[in-house]
């Protein structure tokens, strides 16, 4: 006999994991497009925003349906709240990917200033944080997210480093200003995505252990 409720709970989890791969994919593709100065790839990421929104809605509907029909309790209840909050975080991460993709064309005309500074490194760190949070969600094992706070500190540091470096380039030559402001914005987006990775880590901890922890 198939337990319909357990099947639907698992389906919800699958949807969230797929959305995780999708949103994180948008962010990392946007960073690749930025680095390779590839407006075509950036255009593809920009177009994915529609599917991102559809997936976001589908997850919310599935979670509401579970709550309405089955009155979930205890760990199941925490799993659904976790799914809903992850859904929001992943949607925002995907949207930041879209925002970065939107800036690629304007940054593809001539070589990057300062070889993009630490932005690619920062992008990699953030994507790894998101992926580790997603792994913890998939395996319900909080090991991959134990060092999350520290990694978020590094990301915050990088953001300030990029800001300071951009300021020097802008002072050197006012023609750098427009592009450097974009770099500062991208650093800000990536830093926010790191925060969302921490939010996901907190939610997964609560789902697994029932204990509230503060990450970052």
């Amino acid at each position, binding site marked *: 006999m198939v337990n319909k*409720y357990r099947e639907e709970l698992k389906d919800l989890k699958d949807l969230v994991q797929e959305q995780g791969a999708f949103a994180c994919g948008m962010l990392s593709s946007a960073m690749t497009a930025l680095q390779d100065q590839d407006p075509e790839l950036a255009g593809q990421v920009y177009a994915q925003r529609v599917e991102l929104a559809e997936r976001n809605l589908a997850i919310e509907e599935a979670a509401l349906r579970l709550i309405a029909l089955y009155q979930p*309790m*205890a760990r199941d*209840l925490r799993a659904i709240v976790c799914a809903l909050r992850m859904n929001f975080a992943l949607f925002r991460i995907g949207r930041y990917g879209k925002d970065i993709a939107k800036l690629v064309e304007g940054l593809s005309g001539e070589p990057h200033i300062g070889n993009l500074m630490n932005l690619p490194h920062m992008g990699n760190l953030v994507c790894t944080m998101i992926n580790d949070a997603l792994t913890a969600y998939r395996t319900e094992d909080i090991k991959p997210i134990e060092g999350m706070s520290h990694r978020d500190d590094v990301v915050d540091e990088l953001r300030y480093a990029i800001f300071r470096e951009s300021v020097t380039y802008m002072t050197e030559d006012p023609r750098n200003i427009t592009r450097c402001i974009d770099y500062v914005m991208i650093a800000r987006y990536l830093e926010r995505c790191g925060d969302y990775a921490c939010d996901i880590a907190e939610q997964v901890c609560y789902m697994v252990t029932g204990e509230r922890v503060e990450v970052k």
Partner: protein
Amino acid sequence: MQRDDSILTADHVSLYYGENQALRDISLSIPQNQVTALIGPSGCGKSTLLRCFNRLTDLVENVRLEGRIFFEGLDIHDPDCDVVELRKRIGMVFQRPNPFPSSIYNNIAYGPRVHGIHNKKMLDTIVRESLEAAALWDEVADRLHDSAMGLSGGQQQRLCIARTLAVEPEIILMDEPCSALDPIATSKIENLINDLKEHYTVVIVTHNMQQAARVSDFVGFMYLGQLIEFGPTARIFKNPQEELTNNYVTGRFG
């Protein structure tokens, strides 16, 4: 698990039906003026524990009880304890409404008469107040002398609650009080339970987890005669400490 605000305490209670052990070393305290729900799969001993609280288990043959139960600090199995008085102070409402085959009025007045009240005016007041407290007065005020058997199931159950209230108990034990009722009647009883805790302590046995979640302040989860976990209702349903409780409240067994 002794608490300052507890009115009823089980202290290492074990109970055997002949060779068969139904309760295993149960210790818990029922907090005063709160609703406590006992949940657990069929046969876990929740009804047996409830029946111990006013010594209804005495009526079963071959029952042996170990441990002690204290009601307001007094051992209810003490030879000095008057069991009739005990059952007056700790009333019971059963699964199926069981009104006496008599008038609505007599159903309520029966208990007080047994306890020596015969003054008509006084009985009238008790009947009215009990029916009001059980949220039934408005529905039966003009037919108090009709047979109680003519009431609907939900009304009969509220009549049984009113009959319990008529002898001014301190604790009301309820054994699956809604399982024979439709959703509307169930919701009336649940609202009533919430009102009752202002003046009474309620202990309810239910197999309906949502009902336990809706009506209770504390929940005890029982399994195979043991009390697995006892705690505030929100914690039990949000974040139980025991894996077994989690598995039961999420519907993995039971």
